[in-house]
Every structure is written in C-alpha cells, then in structure tokens.
C-alpha cells in the first residue's frame, strides 16, 4: 500500500501568479502541482501525492486563523498520512504559512508533517517545535537539494523508523532531547571539550545554549509635545526611480531621504522598491506605507515638536538578518546623534 501525501504550496509555485495573485484563496487540486513533481519523484512508489493545497501568501498572512480552518477543511477529506509543505526557502509569509499548516494539520489529524525553510525564515522560530523543518537554501535555487531530504524524512516518519540527529537527517532542531547512553562519562567529555577549546580546536557542544536575542523595551516617551519623531520603514518607500537602487529582495543597503520639504508623499515623488508585495497601492499613495501626511499635520498642530527631516528605508523581503541588524544599528546611531526621541517603524 502506498501512503497518502497532501502537499501545500503558495500561489507562486502553483504557477497562478506573483504578488498580484497573493490574495488567492485556498483551493485544492488532485495530484501534484509545481514542485510536487519533484516531491513525487523523490517519494517513489512508497507514497503518493494525492492532492495539492494552494493558498496565496498574502491571503494567508492577513487571515491566518480563517485560512488555516479553510485549509484543514480542504485537506481532511483526502485522508493524508503525511503533509508536506513548501519548501518556503527564505520567504517569510510562505514560511509562516507552511509552518502554520504543518502545525495545525499535524495536531488536528494526528499525522506527521514536514516542511523546508532557510534558517533565517521567521517561520522557523514560530513552528520548529511543531513540525520537522528541513534546512534549505535561501531561494528556489535550492529546490533540487531540499526536496529529496524532505521526502526521505517524510518516508521515515511514515514508516516510523528511528531518526538520527537533526544534523544527520537535515532538519532544524526541534528542541527535543533524547536520552542516549555513551561509554564515557560527562566529566571526561566536558574536560576534553574544554581542552579543545583552550587549544583553539573545533569541538561540538552537547547542549547548545539558546540564543534569545531580545532587547528590553526602552523607556516610554515622557514629553510628546517636545519630542522629535523619526520614520523608518522596511516597506521599500523611496524617491521616484529608486535613485540608490535598493534591491527588490535580499536588500544589501538602506536609503536615507529628506522629507523636510514634504507635507505628504505622492505618486509624483515617491514609490516602493519592494518586490515582495503588490506595489500598486503603495505607488498610488506612498503615505499608505510611510504616513508622512498624518505626521506632518500633527506636527503643525503641535501634537509633537518635530518630524525628523530624514526617513530611513529598506526592503524587508528575504533580507538577511545580518544586513537588517547592520541597517538598524547604523540608523540608530544617526538618530541618536541628531537627538531623535522615538521611532515609528512601518512594515508591509
């Protein structure tokens, strides 16, 4: 008997369209669609992709609970033994959707689930405990490498075979610990590790410390009337024609542009460089992403003292965390030097 597999993909991989179709509602189709072909090839005769659920990334992200319910209702009649989602690479909304679908279907139907993401995908930290997330490259170039690993892991789960460590199986740690017996006691292993560390040699820890990179909330703004407020965005708003060529995805830079002489932004002077959402609405009225109009009016009314004369902008679309950190730190230094009191950061 062949196991039954349902595959979840987004509107882009289903060939329905890009951002202009991101509001595509959940639907299910018999058999494989798009990357499902590669998945079926890797699964071989042991398992069959009986159906593919497709949902637009925008629709999912804006209606998470409703979308999950709709997807569950579509998947359930197909009686899957396994659900595979993605891979989503470093696409944030797709990763969130893939992880969310895996977590919910796994819980409600009691079946194993597997997805694939780049380690920096925000879906990883959200769902790593609820599903198996195979480590992938940051873009669809990694599809050929990722799918066979996902398929093999899925088959092992279906056949209830013992799994090796996350590194051996190719998935990102779920935070589950198993007891194992080793021939040498902990003290010996720890001493050996320490000696290696002191000699500057490579060693592998048996218990990696979790890295909770949290920043404590800053003290609130005390005196709004005398405050200078700055605007920052990851929504890609920039002067018309994107003079500094901020990339539409995986941004390597940010821009700093004057709004000193602007009462509002308009389609005449500004646009978005972002390649991860339908730009129509932001291009028509950039204030929808960067609210210069409202803030300028409030400044004139004396609600606060000053709208800082420069806004900082980048494209948050598969942007490496290391880049985003650097942008943030550099922007913060400039804001500090100029006596800004508080920051409004908008994201799409």
């Amino acid at each position, binding site marked *: 008997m062949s196991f039954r597999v349902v595959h979840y993909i987004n509107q882009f991989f289903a060939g329905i369209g890009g951002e202009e179709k991101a509001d595509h509602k959940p639907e299910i189709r018999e058999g494989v669609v798009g990357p499902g072909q590669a998945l079926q090839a890797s699964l071989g005769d042991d398992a069959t992709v009986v159906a593919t659920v497709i949902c637009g990334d*925008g629709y999912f992200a804006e209606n998470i609970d409703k979308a999950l319910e709709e997807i569950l209702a579509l998947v359930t009649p197909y009686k899957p033994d396994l659900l595979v989602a993605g891979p989503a690479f470093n696409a944030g909304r797709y990763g969130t959707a893939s992880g969310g679908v895996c977590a919910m279907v796994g819980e409600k139907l009691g079946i194993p689930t597997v997805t694939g993401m780049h380690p920096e995908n925000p879906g990883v930290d959200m769902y790593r405990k609820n599903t198996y997330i195979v480590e992938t490259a940051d873009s669809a170039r990694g599809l050929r490498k990722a799918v066979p690993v996902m398929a093999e892991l899925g088959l092992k789960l279906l056949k209830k075979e013992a799994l090796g460590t996350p590194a051996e199986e190719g998935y990102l740690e779920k935070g589950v610990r198993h007891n194992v017996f080793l021939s040498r006691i902990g003290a010996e292993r720890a001493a050996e590790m320490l000696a290696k560390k002191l000699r500057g040699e490579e060693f592998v820890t048996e218990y990696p410390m979790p890295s909770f990179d949290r920043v404590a909330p800053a003290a609130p703004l005390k005196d709004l009337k005398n405050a200078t407020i700055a605007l920052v965005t990851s929504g890609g708003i920039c002067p018309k024609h994107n003079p500094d060529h901020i990339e539409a995805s995986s941004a390597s830079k940010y821009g700093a542009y004057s709004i000193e002489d602007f009462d509002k932004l308009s389609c005449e002077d500004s646009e978005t460089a972002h390649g991860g959402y339908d730009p129509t609405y932001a291009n028509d009225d950039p204030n929808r992403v960067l609210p210069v109009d409202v803030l300028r009016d409030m400044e004139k009314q004396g609600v606060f003292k000053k709208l800082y004369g420069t806004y900082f902008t980048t494209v948050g679309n598969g942007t490496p965390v290391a880049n985003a950190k650097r942008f943030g730190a550099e922007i913060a230094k400039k804001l500090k030097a100029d006596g800004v009191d508080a920051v409004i950061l*908008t994201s799409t």
Partner: protein
Amino acid sequence: MVKEIEREGFPVVHVCTIVPISLTVGANRIIPAVAIPYPLGDPAKTPAEEYEIRKHLVEKSLKALQTEVSEQTVFND
C-alpha cells in the same frame, strides 16, 4: 531593525500587518496594521476615510510610544 534601534535606547513602535512575525523578531511595541500592500490605508475607502484610518493608527502609535511596557505588547483597539 526594530531591535537594533531600540538597543540604542529609543522607544520604537512597529506598525506591521503580520503580527506573529513581529513577535518572533522581538519588537516590544506592536500596532497591527491594515494589510500587507497598504499597512496604513485602504484603497477601497475614500481618501478622507483612508486618512482617518491612517491617523488612528498613528495616534495609537504615539500612545504606544508613551506607554510603559515590561514585555512584548500588541496594542489592539
């Protein structure tokens, strides 16, 4: 970016549509926005109505910036 700016000691409010991502990333003051392609607007409304939606979100943002928080906080209506 939110976190690195806050690390310098500024209160930062994150106006964003996908609140779960903001929570995962570590923003401390979060305002849920309208939709991904128009977080502070709504093209289905008239320009005047849209302005009011945007003004409401900005007013909430300023209020959040003046609110003492000890942990990640989502400011709903």
